[in-house]
């Protein structure tokens, strides 16, 4: 059984389209997303609609949570929109009732069974959606994050740094990011996990996507040049 895991789409629709096409080409039977569907990019509505349409099972990311909090506090949202045009408030202002309902229905994590393997999907870690899991993670650190009820396969995102590694018998997969890479490679990433019985083999796949439209939409929606370069170059821009 092949399952594709995505994360950190960050409202980048063309990247999500490519990710789903790649997952389908690789033979994935199921697609799960580890949070941060929205924020930063210009296509929040389009991304949520596509995730819903394709039946992608998702969890909530830290940015999704921020946007949802604004949606649930319209007074604060209006105030923020008047004061400054931050990305979460702008994103929240776009979302309609259906997108709002989808966001508010997202769980913090998903615990599922694939074959004989117990799988935990969360955005950061069980410690919180802002917690990071990097390739340097040690057995002790992992144990302290997962606690006593550790899964056989742990899938996360948030750091935007994709990797897969086995730590103390647990397969750890960070899907990286579909829409906003930070490692200097502008291609998106996804993880494909092949499960046979109790064996889980994971591989990170990188994919290119047409980014001209994304840049055009970011510009059209008033994104600063730094943000546009971040998307196009796949790296964080240093503050002057």
């Amino acid at each position, binding site marked *: 059984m092949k399952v594709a895991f995505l994360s950190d789409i960050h409202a980048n*629709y*063309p990247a999500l389209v490519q990710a789903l096409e790649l997952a389908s080409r690789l033979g994935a039977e199921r697609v799960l997303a580890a949070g941060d569907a929205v924020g930063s990019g210009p*296509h929040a509505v389009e991304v949520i*609609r596509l995730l819903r*349409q394709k039946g992608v099972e998702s969890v909530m990311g830290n940015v999704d949570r921020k946007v949802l909090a604004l949606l649930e506090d319209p007074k604060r949202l209006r105030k923020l929109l008047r004061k400054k045009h931050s990305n979460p408030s702008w994103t929240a202002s776009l979302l309609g009732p259906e997108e709002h309902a989808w966001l508010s229905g997202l769980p913090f994590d998903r615990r599922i069974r694939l074959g004989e393997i117990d799988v935990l999907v969360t955005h950061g870690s069980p410690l919180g959606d802002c917690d990071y899991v990097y390739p340097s993670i040690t057995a002790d650190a992992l144990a302290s994050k997962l606690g006593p009820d550790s899964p056989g396969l742990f899938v996360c995102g948030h750091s935007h740094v994709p990797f897969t590694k086995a730590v103390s018998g647990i397969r750890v997969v960070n899907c990286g990011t579909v829409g906003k890479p930070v490692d200097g490679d502008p291609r998106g990433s996804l993880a494909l996990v092949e499960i046979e019985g109790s064996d889980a083999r994971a591989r990170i796949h990188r994919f290119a996507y047409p980014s001209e*439209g*994304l840049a055009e*939409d970011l510009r059209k929606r008033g994104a600063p040049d730094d943000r546009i370069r971040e998307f196009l170059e796949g790296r964080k821009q240093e503050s002057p």
Partner: protein
Amino acid sequence: MNAEATPSGGRVPAPGKRRTYELPAKLSRPALLGRLEEAGYPVESSGASTETDVYFDTQAGHLYRKGLRLRRRALARGHVWQLVGAGSGPLESLTSGEGFPTEGPVHDEVTRRTKGNVLFAFLQIRFRQERYSMTGPGGSRFDLLLYTGLRFTNTLSGEHKTHPPLATVRRMKGDPNESEYLGVFLRDGAGLRRVSGGLFPTGLKHLSIAPPGAPLPASLLVRGEDPMTVAGRKVLAQQLYRMRANTAGTIEDLDIEFLHDLRVASRRARAALQLFRDILGRRRCEPIRRELKWVADVLGGVRDLDVFIPNLDTRYEAALVNPEGRAWITGAFREQRKKALAELVEALQSRRFALLLQRMERLAESPPPRMPRGNGALPSHSAGAALVEGAVKRVLKLARKMGDAPDEEGLHRLRILFKRLRYTAEFFKSTLDRDPKKELALLVDVQDCLGEHQDAVVAMERLSALALNPPGGESLPPGLLLEIGALIQAERAVAQQRRDAFDGLWSKFRKAYF
């Protein structure tokens, strides 16, 4: 946002603008409809038809320049003429034949806007149109038109090309953001390419036809920061663009303004090659200039008659020429024009002319040198201003030297220098802070006066030549000779009048400047 008030006082967004997309080769029409359905845009067909539209405008693009399109669509019962863009909806008039309506809203509005200039067909578009309506996931309603079997024909040259299917989408009802969402899906989800404008601009672009009036594309405008090596190439490309835009209309003799604009562009191209010769390379410029001189001569043969023949009408009145004489004289000059036009058409359809345009294109598109010589690396804002200033100084220096009673040769040289100044100022117009023509307004009057004097002198020569060498070689009856003599007298009076006016203007000019 465009909006209209609802009875309850709320605001309902007005329908959006129509957006045009090109379908990729790998995406069939049914596949597109399937993808739309899958993305949450169920489509419902509301009919299909096969149409032929012909778009009309004037040589100067009176309609296009104002964002208007005049099209004629063939119907089973006749033709419908539509003027699109003049208000909320298109103006329409029905005609039984293909001719332009002689009355009605389209006739009135088009006549008012084109000021009676000649209208002719620019582009013909044949297509099958399928109409759909669809509702988006957010509840917005869209109107989708699919154009297949597209064939664009350049009605001036007869060239035609097929085109991949196009789709146009317009939000009819609902949140304006929904147009953006659908646009993102069509572009990134279905792989459609957004194209600017509708069928008409797409057709013009596909056939590489300049729009009516040949407005310069932004890419050809000289910007202040362009180095002179780039500016020279752009100025040459501008003239080439205008020459190409006016060639087919000149060959078809649709409107004398095509010929005039072709001549002006070829003259300016010569002036540009002279002005930028050191920057573009003398060895490349000189052969092109020689060929442009040949083109200017054949064009001049017809253009002079285009100016002369309409002038005859006022001279007939002044000289009291009888109707038979008028008909014969006008007929003789029309015959001369016919011959000159035949020579011109042959020249414009020749390999020599095609090669000339190719050479101009190669030079205009050649990459600028990395290490330019002379002032080639200077920005055109400063270098252009210096060139214009130099040209102004040369004009004024000669004018000062000519004194109170200028001779014919001096005036001829002054005309040449002034023309160079005009062209130089024109080339750098987009980079200059001010237009030097304002400074030299009096000299413009002097130049116009000299031009009219020259026209009268040429007219006298032309009339004398007709009297001495009539068509057919037979001598003319005395009555007709007298009529021609009277016309020469009328031209002489005009020449004298212009000469008198010139003396006054010249002394006014000298007083103002020296």
